[in-house]
């Protein structure tokens, strides 16, 4: 399955400056796609997921326009050709 990751500005530092990363994912879920991304760009994945594999509290992962918090988390199923956005939440101080 082909997916396209769209990266928040800070994450591009760990992907050679790329705004997008296109991958062939051996699997069907967001978790599978992030594991594939970790092999290509481990620095990106370790900013999105903590060391226990959970999405960090103030990071939002969208598949197309839907937050995975509302669609099954890392088990959210993907469609071929979909985009996955990795974004910072609006939280801050």
């Amino acid at each position: 399955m082909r997916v396209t990751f769209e990266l928040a500005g800070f994450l591009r530092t760990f992907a050679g400056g790329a705004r997008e990363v296109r991958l062939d994912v051996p699997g069907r879920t967001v978790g599978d796609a992030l594991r594939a991304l970790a092999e290509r760009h481990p620095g990106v994945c370790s900013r999105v997921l903590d060391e226990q594999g959970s999405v960090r509290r103030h990071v939002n992962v969208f598949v197309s326009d839907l937050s995975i918090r509302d669609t099954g988390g890392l088990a959210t199923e993907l469609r071929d050709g979909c985009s996955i956005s990795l974004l910072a939440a609006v939280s801050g101080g």
Partner: protein
Amino acid sequence: MPTTQQIEVRRGDVVVLVGTMKGAFLFRAGPDRARFEMGGPFFPGHSVYALAYDGRAGRRRVWAATSSMHWGSVLNQSDDFGATWTTPEVPTVQFPKGGKALASIWQIALGRADEPEVMYCGVEPAALFESRDAGKSFQLVEGLWQHPHREQWQPGGGGLCLHTVLPDPEVRGRIVVAISTGGVYRTDDGGRTWTVRNKGVRAEFLPDKHPEFGQCVHKIARHASRPERLYLQNHWGLYRSDDAGDSWKDIARGVPSDFGFCMAVHPHDAETAYIVPLESDGFRCTPEGKLRVYRTRDGGGSWHPLSEGLPQRDAFETVLRDAMGTDVEDRAGIYFGTRSGKLFASRDDGDSWTALATGLPPVVCVRAARA
């Protein structure tokens, strides 16, 4: 993003490392410390709660622990005083799989001079990590992590953090750590076993004022020449130990309040220490609107205010636990930063002070060294 200003540090310069809630700054001056230049912000937007300078084994390395609310916490290093930084792709300080997740690094401590590859990180949730390869990798110190008290430690206002790490320069295998709130723990066998060392330290916020553990220790400081002597700033209380924490003696005489966060020891005199008292836990600001450092020169027998050059009117300031440091020059430089973003320096043991900066983000860490 802001433009980062670089500084050129020469050998023998005095360097002040300043961590803030929005990035790190480096200040440099010649050995006379007459004029400081500022570099930074480094890591703009990221909080920097821990900094260290490692001059062991010929290094000139600055360590910076950065935390982002969004992207996690990571230990970065620079061998050129911030011109370039090395940030690991995957953070080097991480809990083992199946355990907790790192929230933040609160302290970076260097190992003994004869173990230049050893360093430590104290973190939140409260745990200690050790490196034996000069920071390339870190391992959780399981002896402390498995301590039966750990499940009962409670978070203080800043979280459940291990914020002070003091490897003993003389007794091999001895390390003192402090946890908010857990108190003081010590190992004498390199981290395999840990014993609580809170005897005499009050826990004002608990029904039992002298529990075995659960104290909210804010900072411990000591002098390398006399490592068995420790000074402790508590959440209410000032203490001294002359037996590496086996017992603690109240030394809060002559201070307007024994509440505060920071504490530093003079680099050449184990009898001299510095604090910045705050009014109370309910009003964590300097009393009477006066910013005063208090100094003892007799091991806590008496404390005296130092105010020359510090604002003495409408100065309701807060100095946090790691926001004070000293250099190693003959006439000691003492440095501290406030939550309101002011950075002050003394180049005469604290007798007088000047402001190095007045508009920084909230200052959370200050360290000084000779480059």
